[in-house]
């Protein structure tokens, strides 16, 4: 390796190293702070390693910290988020898959127009819909309920999942559909037995996008979920804003990390699949 290339290499490493540091530093501060006792947080620099690491703040955040008047930690919110996220993800991915299949592989009348309308829906900021939606929900008794918030997530997730699946299915050769039709299979049979089994990579992509998006949602949870079903993000907000004397930064950090751990885990565990799914075109017969 000659001198010039060595310098170039060094520059590259320096830049990526700095970039990594820039993103990792806040995470480090959060983890370090969450493992300190409050006296230590007060006395030491935020960059210092914990002298006597403790999981006390994590336990506090999970089961005792106060959000408003209620002091039961984030665990209720965690389970609320789970029961909101799981059905919302399943439904929005399934509906997106069916929509994408119908739009891409069945020459439905007005398919292009319907797809265009759906895309417009996806690009309008959804804050615009909140007031009319809240009014409509309350008119039919869906406001402040679990089905209500799930429905909102499904509706707003559908355009993106439809787009993802439509693009994936567009690469499937029309001969495959024709062969299945000659074999006598209908719309649902072809979907269930031919198309869906080919869709694993794109299902993974859609599930990851929807799961992280819905888990991280704050606004819909705040407005549509009601008191009993507040998701973790809403509880976290309450917890951080509840003030009695000194701010327990260690507990706040632990609570924030707990809330972020699910999407983080999804990315870490499925990153390989995610990249593969995005890169995958149609499956060759």
């Amino acid at each position: 390796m000659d001198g010039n290339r060595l310098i170039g290499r060094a520059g590259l490493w320096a830049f990526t190293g700095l970039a990594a540091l820039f993103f990792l530093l806040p995470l480090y501060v959060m983890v370090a702070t969450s493992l300190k006792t409050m006296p230590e947080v007060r006395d030491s620099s935020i960059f210092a390693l914990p002298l006597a690491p403790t999981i006390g703040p994590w336990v506090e955040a999970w089961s005792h910290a106060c959000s408003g008047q209620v002091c039961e930690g984030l665990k209720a919110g965690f389970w609320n988020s789970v029961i909101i996220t799981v059905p919302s993800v399943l439904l929005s991915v399934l509906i997106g898959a069916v929509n994408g299949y119908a739009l891409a592989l069945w020459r439905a009348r007005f398919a292009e127009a319907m797809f265009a309308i759906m895309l417009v829906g996806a690009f309008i900021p959804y804050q615009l819909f909140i007031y009319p939606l809240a009014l409509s929900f309350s008119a039919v008794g869906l406001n402040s309920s679990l089905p209500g918030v799930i429905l909102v997530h499904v509706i707003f997730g559908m355009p993106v999942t439809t787009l993802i699946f439509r693009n994936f299915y567009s690469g499937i050769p029309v001969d495959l559909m024709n062969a299945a039709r000659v074999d006598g299979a209908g719309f649902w049979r072809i979907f269930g037995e031919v198309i869906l089994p080919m869709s694993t990579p794109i299902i993974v992509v859609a599930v990851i996008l929807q799961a992280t998006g819905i888990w991280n949602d704050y606004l819909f949870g705040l407005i549509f979920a009601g008191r009993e079903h507040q998701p973790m993000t809403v509880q976290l907000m309450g917890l951080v804003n509840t003030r009695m004397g000194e701010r327990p930064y260690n507990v706040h950090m632990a609570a924030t990390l707990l809330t972020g751990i699910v999407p983080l885990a999804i990315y870490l565990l499925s990153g390989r699949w995610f990249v593969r799914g995005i890169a995958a075109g149609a499956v060759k017969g």
Partner: protein
Amino acid sequence: MKDFPHASEGAAIGIDGLGIRFGHHDVISDLSLDILPGEFLVLLGPSGCGKSTLLNAVAGLIDVHAGTISISGRDVTRAEPKDRGIGMVFQSYALYPRMSVAQNMGFGLRVGGMAKAEIAERVQRTAKFLQLESLLGRRPADLSGGQRQRVAIGRALVRDAEVFLFDEPLSNLDAQLRADLRVEIKRLHQSLGSTMLYVTHDQVEAMTLADRIVVMKGGEIQQIGAPAEIYGRPANLFVAGFLGTPKMNFLEGDVAAESGRRMFRAEGLRLDVTGMLLDNPDFAGPATLGLRPEDLSPAGPGEEAPLAGEVTLTEPLGPETIVWAALGAGQVSLRMGAENFPAPGDRLHIRPDLARASLFDRATGRRL
């Protein structure tokens, strides 16, 4: 391949006044065609000629806008593909990627509600017939192109159809495999006796497989006939030029009566074509004389040779040699033997076999 226990005989297909429209564009209009029971009919034409569209209409995969299609005397114009008694083989194989070979072959039977044991037996029987038994557990991705297409044929065969539709089934294969599978398909037809409708743009497939060839262009039938007839007596300039490699030689000139004889006159050329059997013997005017490369031969010493020119190029192919020569009236090719062919630059005297020649009206392109 002799004893495949096949329940159905071939069925007749009737296409009457068929019209197919994509949007406001007529792809096919008022097309009629009768296919005999057990016939191997090849639809031949360049891409975009409407041959695949016609096949898809017979399969029921696209909507027909006018006319009727009947199979076995039953009107199926509006019937679903599965209710037409057809099996279909596609250019891209179109195997279900997540199913095994056995599942691929049995899918149609399973959809039709057949009992598991009977499906297994039929798949087994068909696999044995096509020598696919060792592949039954594999996925399509683990098969070669030729194996995939054999599985696709098996999938069509297992359903005991009366009519088989082939949509350019060999086009994705390399030359050697294409030749092998061509022979297999021909044997298949001989042992099954089913009606086969076969779409291709490959004239060799058409010539070797067909009982009758339908040559199409621009959504219209140009000529229907046995391969030898299509090749020997093409109905128009398009058919004449489409079949044959190298192409038929075309000499442009005119036809005129001269003192009781019919003469073809071109630049530096006068041919007495009185002996040619013409449908339109009184024709006079601009015409094109078509001569196959094998109908031109070098004249021996002392023989009369109305054509003469200089050899420009030779293509030795092994069993034969294509010799190109420049005449006053244009470039022509001759099919000659593997040995003793002239070299570029040689002067060549050529004798045409006028009994096998074709004459076309240059204005309409039609055979005279």
